[in-house]
């Protein structure tokens, strides 16, 4: 057990609290404080991963008993998967801080407070292996994001934040109901309400059709996670949230928060409800495939760039859910890789949109065109990231989608073929977006005087572009981190 774990774990929260006491007037100091904080968080996340003795198995980091909370135990543990996502989460915090360096708001302290609290809550979800702990952090994520969108968002931010909160909370309630049920069961079996990993395993819920406990709990958890991912038809909150969210919200939402739904499946559903996963696998695979096509087609007809990227997320997340539920080790490996790839390319696209918006105060594609002429640096970086998102070979997007499609093909050819149409459709809408913004002639007078990216602005895009190519050429850099855990997330490991 890591004796210093608690301190490391609480760093983002302590940093967030630090913003409350920061001097309001000194914006630069607040921003520097945020930058240092984000760097520290990334550094300790990486260090925690590097210190793992065996990324292939869950290593307990910290455990404390809560005799005063129904005698429950809170266990924090880490394996390759959670470590990888922990690093991604911390990395995205740093990206957000750098990208929004020039942010102008009276509520700067609140802004950073929310970002760091959100990061802390995500870290907590990733490391908690007792169901109760996971649920606390899962819910804790909602509030900072709700306020972030509600306070710093666009014109319809209230509607979007409310819809996002309610839809995700509705899913959480189902998860909570299942937890209460399992707690009651655990109490009958062990005389304790505790729901740590070992206890959940020992419950061994019966499966004998839809109305059996395993099946109902599977669906309760699945709906909670479907809403988070989001999987078609549980996706309607996402476009609104993305469009109205400030850039920081969009980056974190697309980059890491959506992945928490997939992580939930891998950590708390697949290992515990094998018969239900088998029984309902085809339904989920088809939902994933529909999501891929629906997301792609809807993205195609969008005029707002942010909305287009939001729908593209639904499409990409469809792939990931298919990969996970295929239970084919190759596809599961691809799905986890795709989580990282999507966590790099989609935030990159949102950063691009952010720079366009800060210059022109519009996100409509028809308001741009020919930007490559006045913003060549932007055009190159935006293209590289777009290429990653459309899964061009030798970019990170290709690796994940290829592995998933190949893995799913072994199991269900129809679904694989349906999903493959997404590979065709994604270049259609993404190239259309790129074409309408960066290529062609400059048709709007205002665009002629647009400034190219400064070095500070370009930095996050450069880093993300490099990662897009690097992981496309050498995916093992990431896959090696979680390779050993794959068995645990497929039936073969049960």
């Amino acid at each position, binding site marked *: 057990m890591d004796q210093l774990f608690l301190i490391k774990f609480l760093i983002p929260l302590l940093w967030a609290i630090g913003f409350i006491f920061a001097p309001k007037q000194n914006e630069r100091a607040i921003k520097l404080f945020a930058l240092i904080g984000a760097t520290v968080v990334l550094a300790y996340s990486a260090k925690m991963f590097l210190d793992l003795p065996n990324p292939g198995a869950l290593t307990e980091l910290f455990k404390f008993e809560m005799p005063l909370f129904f005698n429950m135990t809170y266990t924090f543990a880490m394996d390759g998967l959670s470590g990888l996502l922990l690093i991604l989460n911390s990395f995205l915090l740093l990206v957000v801080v750098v990208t929004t360096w020039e942010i102008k708001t009276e509520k700067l302290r609140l802004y950073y407070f929310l970002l760091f609290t959100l990061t802390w809550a995500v870290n907590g979800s990733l490391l908690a292996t007792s169901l109760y702990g996971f649920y*606390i952090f899962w*819910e804790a994520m909602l509030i900072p994001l709700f306020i972030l969108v509600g306070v710093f968002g666009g014109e319809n931010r209230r509607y979007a934040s409310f819809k996002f909160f309610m839809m995700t909370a509705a899913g959480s309630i189902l998860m*909570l*109901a299942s937890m209460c049920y399992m707690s009651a*069961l655990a109490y009958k079996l062990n005389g304790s309400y505790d729901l740590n990993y070992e206890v959940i395993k020992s419950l061994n819920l019966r499966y004998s059709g839809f109305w059996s406990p395993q099946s109902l709990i599977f669906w309760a958890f699945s709906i909670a996670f479907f809403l988070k991912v989001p999987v078609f038809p549980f996706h309607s909150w996402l476009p609104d949230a993305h469009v109205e969210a400030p850039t920081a919200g969009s980056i974190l939402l697309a980059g890491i928060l959506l992945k928490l739904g997939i992580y939930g499946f891998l950590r708390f559903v697949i290992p515990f409800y094998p018969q239900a996963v088998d029984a309902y696998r085809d339904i989920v695979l088809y939902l994933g495939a529909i999501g891929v096509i629906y997301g792609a087609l809807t993205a195609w007809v969008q005029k707002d760039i942010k909305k287009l990227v939001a729908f593209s997320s639904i499409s990409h997340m469809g792939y990931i859910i298919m990969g996970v539920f295929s239970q084919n080790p190759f596809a599961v490996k691809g799905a986890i890789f795709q989580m990282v790839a999507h966590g790099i390319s989609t935030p990159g696209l949102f950063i691009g949109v952010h720079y366009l918006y800060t210059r022109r105060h519009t996100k409509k594609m028809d308001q741009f065109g020919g930007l490559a002429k006045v913003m060549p640096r932007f055009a190159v970086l935006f293209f590289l990231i777009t290429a990653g998102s459309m899964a061009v070979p030798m970019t990170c997007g290709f690796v994940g989608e290829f592995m998933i499609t190949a893995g799913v093909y072994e199991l269900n050819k129809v679904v694989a073929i349906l999903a493959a149409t997404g590979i065709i459709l994604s270049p259609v809408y993404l190239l259309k977006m790129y074409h309408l913004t960066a290529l062609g002639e400059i048709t709007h007078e205002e665009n002629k005087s647009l400034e190219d990216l400064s070095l500070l602005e370009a930095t996050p895009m450069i880093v993300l572009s490099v990662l897009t190519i690097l992981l496309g050429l050498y995916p093992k850099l990431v896959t090696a981190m979680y390779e050993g855990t794959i068995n645990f997330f497929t039936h073969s490991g049960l």
Partner: protein
Amino acid sequence: MENLSFVQNVIIFIALNAAALLSLNIKKNGKYIAFGLSLVASVVFFAMLYTQDVFNLSDLFTLDGNKVFLLKLVSLLNILMILINGYNSLERVKSTLLISYMFLGGVFLLGANELVTFYVALETIALIGYTLVATSNLEYSREAAVKYLIQGSIISAIFLLGAALYLGATGGLTLVGATVVNQELYAIAVGIFILTACFKLGAFPFHAWIADTYSNVTLGNLATNFFISKIIIGYKFITVLQALLGECDPHFQDILIRIIQVIAVASAFYGNIVAIVQGQFKRIIAYSSVAHTGYMLMMICMTPDESYEKQLISYLVVYSMTATGVILILNQFAQLNKNEDGRGILTSGFYRNKGLAVILSVFVLSLGGIPLTAGFAMKYMMFTNFFKEGFNIETTSIFISSVVGLAYYIRFVSDLFTENPDKMKLPIIKTRFSESLVHVIILLSIFTFGIAPSLFLGLK
């Protein structure tokens, strides 16, 4: 001697409050004297509760164990509410005195062991309730009070019918250890008591009085009314009904429990759904209390065990205390808006008083059952126990209804953090020391209950 000290203390309480009432006639400083006397009465009463653990006057009245604990808690809340009410206006001091008598009714209800004391205590609380509404001086206060009075009187009459049937079925009026000689009559009597509980607690479809009453009483009175009526009436009815159901023939018991469950689930759904479309906060609170009554009623159906009463008390205290906190803060916002309580009053609340907005957010998130707050711990404990009892469908239904509940709670937070373009023109909300003290106490309690509920529940 011990029992005599309790009687003495009650007499002192009544005498001091009577003196306070009389001192209102003193032209100069009358309200200050009245306030002081009432406060002293409550403080003395509270202090006396620490002198002994059992107050056993006769078979008719016993206060012991959990009841004494509950009484201490309510007494403390009573003192805090008197402080909050303050002595700034004559109306407030009058309300304080009325509430003191309501509190006294609560004390007798809590200790009542037979139906006559039970009835008298219940009526005392109800009468003060009618008066508080009628004297609220809002546009429709009197109409609401009359409506409440008429419906309340009908229910009282029905309750008396139940008491008569109970007498016929058991040969006595005592609520403890009665021997049932006629099960049919007994089941009807218990059914009537269930109906009375549903009315008094405001369960669907006996809730018609609740929205009008709540919306026509001042927020300050509503807050004080809340913790006494909800906690004590809720506790008493639930424990009594549970004991009475235990004596029922299994066949009738099954039917009555089924009826309670249907009412509970219907209340949870109805309250939550209707609350979401309300435009006034008082009406939102009224309907949310209908929903919470649904959760409470489910507790009647549980098998009592060692921790049962503590769970019940903790739920009632947490819910009432949090709701009281919400009402008190809403009152602060409403006072700056000519006592209007439309949803607009919270707009930009965060920019008008950050601390107050954050505290209110925590209160409503607790009511919504967000983790680390008392609301979540209670919800977790209660629903887990419902599942343990095998009420799977009912519990799942109530869970689903609570999603709707979360929607209106989160709207409070949304309103608070919504930035009004004219926020600079909105008045800053100032908080008095006594108000801040109560907010902080409630806030700390919410987190203490939320993080360490077993401290209170004594669960192993």
